[in-house]
């Protein structure tokens, strides 16, 4: 059995899905982030001055890009897989000889592609407002890829466990968005009072944003090695949880 063809089929289907509805998937982040860059980066940022040796615009661009990668990698998988469950299309895959790891890989790859594509769109928008230079391409690309993978997996788990459309909006609205805004996208944690600096250490998005920022401008509030370890171990754990849920048939088999 050629699982490569099954994998390719799922990935192509997923990419066509979000490209076909580009006004809902690719256009909104371009407009939202353009407003971020205009208001926070230019109008307010010019009055803020330097942050850790970088202009405020240079400082926020990596965080805003990564925030888009996170939300869109997550949103793609959670909405697509839950809709597949809701319409019972998932039965097409369950009846066919497609192993669980191919199903997981296909959906997660779709999420990664959308996350990175949105990240690229936001990066190009940022280029309009600022002269973006990347100091370390390897760190920048690897952190973007690993972050998209991590949140695509998280979206998959959310979709598997969700029993209603409300369930797929709770995590993005009440967990991901607050953690992103409090994850050092718009400020350095060194600017916070000590107690909030300590609390921020528990926010995983802080590590991702700072590792990504390090790739752009060489500035980070956290240890880069620790950030990679955290992302890598989280990916392994979430992959194992996803495969376990598929094996048990949680939420997808009677």
């Amino acid at each position, binding site marked *: 059995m050629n699982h490569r063809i*099954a994998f390719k*089929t799922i990935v192509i289907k997923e990419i066509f899905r979000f490209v076909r509805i580009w006004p809902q998937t690719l256009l909104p982040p371009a407009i939202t982030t353009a407003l971020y860059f205009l208001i926070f980066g230019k109008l307010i940022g010019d009055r803020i001055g330097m942050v850790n040796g970088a202009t405020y615009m240079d400082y926020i661009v990596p965080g805003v890009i990564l925030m888009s990668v996170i939300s869109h990698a997550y949103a793609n998988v959670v909405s697509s897989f839950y809709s597949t469950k809701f319409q019972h299309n998932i039965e*097409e895959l*369950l009846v*066919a*000889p497609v192993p669980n790891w191919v199903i997981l890989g296909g959906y997660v790859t779709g999420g990664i592609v959308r996350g990175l594509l949105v990240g690229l769109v936001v990066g190009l928008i940022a280029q309009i407002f600022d002269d973006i230079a990347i100091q370390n391409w390897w760190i920048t690309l690897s952190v973007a890829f690993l972050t998209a993978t991590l949140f695509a997996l998280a979206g998959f788990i959310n979709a598997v466990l969700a029993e209603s459309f409300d369930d797929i909006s709770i995590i993005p609205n009440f967990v991901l968005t607050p953690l992103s805004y409090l994850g050092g996208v718009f400020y350095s944690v060194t600017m916070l009072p000590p107690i909030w600096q300590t609390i921020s250490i528990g926010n995983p998005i802080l590590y991702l944003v700072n590792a990504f920022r390090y790739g752009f401008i060489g500035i980070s509030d956290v240890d880069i090695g620790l950030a990679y370890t955290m992302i890598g171990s989280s990916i392994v754990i979430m992959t194992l949880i996803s495969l376990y849920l598929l094996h048990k*048939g949680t939420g997808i*088999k009677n």
Partner: protein
Amino acid sequence: MKALSIRNLRKTYNNGFEALKGIDLDVEVGDFFALLGPNGAGKSTAIGIISSLVNASAGSVSIFGHDLHSDRTQAKTCIGLVPQEINFNQFDTVKNILINQAGYYGLPRKLALQRTELCLKQMDLWEKRDTVSRRLSGGMKRRVMIARAMVHAPKLLILDEPTAGVDIEIRRAMWKMMEAVNQQGTTIILTTHYLEEAESLCRNIAIIDQGKIVENSDMSSLLAKLQVDHFVMDLAQPLAAAPQIDGFKMELLTDKSLAVAVPKQSGLNQLFSELTQRNIQVISLKNKTNRLEQLFMDLVDAKTAGSQP
């Protein structure tokens, strides 16, 4: 080798409901097999387990000699499923639905396109290939599901109430399509509530009730067990009451319509002779119910009565 072999299959759901209580079933290669049962009898659970949509609690399923547990990929490759409910992506085109399904079964793109064309033509849907599926009629959607199930050329096609909710003309056209698929060598398992459908299409039959197989034989042997035929007669003149004739149970449905139960050993000649002696003229005669339907009701009723305390 059997197309399908089930041994001691059990399923208990999380809420404690025991849907299957250890069923054994064999389906021969090339057969057109009916799996019947009232709602909630366990047939959908059985089909769900065979097609990997439901996890079994115990027992084994073997498809063309491949064990569904230990040789899962090969076993699944042999199956095509047409489920009860429409379950394809309603925003996708007919052609894409089939091409994607072929991809899940590992068919290379070129072969997938060839098989898609063949199956859509066989189901008389080729002209609709670029139509978004939600715009199709109910009958066409049913045919899309059959075409999708056949796109990887399965050896065993499972049809779970494929003609539910379609009009008689489309239903009869679908029967012809199913017969053609079976004649090409595909083994078919059919569940249906239209017992006329099972009687005319299927050669062998199993009836499942309350999680157990209550009957499993060939269709002609099963029909031979029917001891009484039920007819409805239209009369030329109205009657005030049903006539009393020894050996025949009669009931007046309307003043010009008479229901009669005819034991096999008595036959219709004796009945007509008795009616003629009473100056009762019969204009027309028809079966009150389909023969299989009557037998099915007798079996299920007997089982239900037997299970009551």
